């Protein structure tokens, strides 16, 4: 992946990695020290002592991301691809460098295959509206999974209704892993697209995307990967995965809200009609017709979120500075610790894979006799932020037979101490309702 990226864009990161290498201690980086890089946790601030366990909803941002956004607007701001003056040239350069950073991060061969979006949701809607409308027809099937987020379900429902296609779902097993044994049979139908998430936001399951892609390809189906939870936790290499579309959001990986990227194969992007019309995406406009700009601008109508793009690139640099191996080791430690500690809480039913290697540090659970909202309120009163609800996965909740779950989700700054705090908080909930 990105470790082999040429061009030293990660100087800040190299410093941090060097610092970490020089430290003694249990791991390659110390999440407790890493927290100092996240202003929201600063001890003199309004959230001092907060145990933030809702990073699957949105992660917190490191100082380098906040600074990058601020610096852009303070020093380099102008509209992009428009002005002939130096400042506009510089803004455009920052914008396009950010695109290259994201492209390298996900292993894209060609920077023009990366389209800026508002986030994962918009990326998926873009594919449904453009590729979908041209390639999915009456009687065709779109294969989804029980683990999918509403943003990887509803756009396909809208498309299916519009063109007369059908949605089908790959089920999960009792531990929340995809039933790959159902895949081949499902692919015997007229499946045009398989859409699945890289990692489940509700259960933390890591899906075997490369294997799904291989089987889907031999059945002649395209594959879209919802990477919202993949990019923050796993090395992403779209070429190695072999998929056709990969959508991600900056805010799940320390970047700003309202920006994300869609990667798609060039030949697909070339054949797709534009998504929205406006400035930036055109070549020549006549009163009755227009021609389109080169990739990727064809899909980027209007003034883009340039500060967001710069912030997303800073988040990518930050994540890479931690080194993928260290992030993985940290995550594995949290997974193992969380499974063990939560597994011993009386009356707690933990969803998702029991095998640490099949999941990220997202813990979704139900407590006997205490509704998830009540759990969340009791935890909140102890300064612990978790999410309770359906996590935008209502079909999955129905499949699990629960109206909602409580979910604690971690990122690079979370510690095993915080999991201890969570467990104590849950014991308090059991006492209140006991």
């Amino acid at each position, binding site marked *: 992946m990105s470790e082999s990226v040429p061009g030293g864009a990660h100087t800040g990161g190299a410093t941090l990695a060097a610092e970490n290498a020089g430290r003694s201690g249990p791991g390659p980086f110390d999440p407790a020290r890493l927290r100092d890089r996240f202003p929201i946790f600063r001890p003199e601030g309004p959230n001092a002592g907060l145990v933030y366990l809702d990073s699957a909803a949105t992660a917190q941002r490191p100082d380098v991301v906040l600074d990058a956004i601020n610096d852009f607007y303070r020093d380099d701001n102008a509209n992009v691809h428009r002005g002939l003056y130096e400042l506009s040239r510089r803004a455009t350069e920052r914008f396009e460098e950010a695109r290259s950073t994201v492209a390298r991060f996900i292993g894209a061969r060609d920077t023009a295959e990366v389209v800026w979006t508002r986030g994962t949701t918009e990326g998926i809607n873009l594919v449904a509206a453009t590729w979908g409308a041209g390639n999915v027809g009456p009687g065709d099937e779109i294969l989804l999974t029980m683990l999918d987020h509403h943003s990887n379900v509803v756009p396909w429902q809208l498309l299916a209704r519009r063109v007369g296609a059908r949605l089908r779902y790959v089920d999960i097993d009792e531990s929340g892993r995809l039933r790959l044994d159902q895949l081949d049979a499902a692919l015997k139908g007229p499946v045009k697209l398989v859409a699945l998430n890289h990692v489940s936001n509700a259960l933390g399951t890591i899906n075997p995307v490369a294997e799904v892609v291989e089987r889907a390809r031999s059945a002649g189906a395209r594959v879209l990967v919802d990477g919202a939870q993949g990019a923050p936790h796993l090395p992403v290499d779209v070429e190695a995965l072999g998929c056709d579309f990969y959508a991600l959001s900056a805010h799940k990986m320390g970047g700003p809200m309202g920006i994300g990227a869609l990667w798609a194969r060039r030949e697909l992007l070339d054949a797709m009609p534009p998504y929205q019309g406006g400035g930036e995406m055109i070549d020549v406009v006549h009163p009755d017709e227009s021609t389109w700009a080169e990739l990727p601008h064809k899909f980027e109508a209007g003034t883009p979120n340039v500060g967001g793009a710069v912030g997303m690139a800073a988040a990518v640099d930050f994540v890479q500075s931690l080194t993928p191996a260290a992030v993985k080791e940290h995550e594995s430690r949290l997974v193992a610790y969380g499974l063990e500690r939560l597994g011993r809480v009386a009356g707690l039913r933990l969803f998702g894979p029991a095998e640490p290697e099949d999941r990220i540090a997202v813990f979704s659970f139900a407590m006997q006799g205490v509704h998830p909202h009540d759990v969340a309120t009791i935890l909140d*009163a102890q300064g612990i932020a978790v999410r309770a609800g359906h996590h935008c996965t209502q079909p999955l909740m129905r499949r699990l037979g629960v109206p909602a779950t409580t979910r604690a989700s971690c990122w690079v700054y979370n510690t095993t101490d915080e999991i201890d705090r969570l467990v104590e908080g849950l014991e308090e909930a059991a006492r209140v309702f006991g």
Partner: protein
Amino acid sequence: MIDRSTPALGDLFQDIILEHYRRPRNKGALQDATVNVHMNNPTCGDEVHLHLVVEEGVVRDVAFEGEGCSISQSSISMMTQMLKGQPVEEGLRLAERFKEMMHGDADAAKDKALRDARALAGVSKFPTRVKCALLGWDAFEEAVERQG
């Protein structure tokens, strides 16, 4: 450290609330209902099916089925206790009173007409939970509207 202005959990999860949650009153279907309303809270999944027998402007019988948190379900249970046998007009007045209490009105919180539901006064200090407590009352108001 943690912001100690966070209101105490004791204000929220009072015994009487937990008691209604565990042993809800008037729970079940109602064969001869004259009006049925289903309501849910899409952000959290709390839900209620409210069944009413309304005759000559009086709530002769009331029952509910539902699923959700302690606040939503206990509030509905308490509401059914209050509504049974009351004129619809009085039910609507109680709904108003209850909402006032949810907005922090101290007088409403002392209104004996609200009976057990007074225990829910503390919910007003937890803004994210107010909508839980209101679910049943919203369903009642909708039922009255439908009944005409």
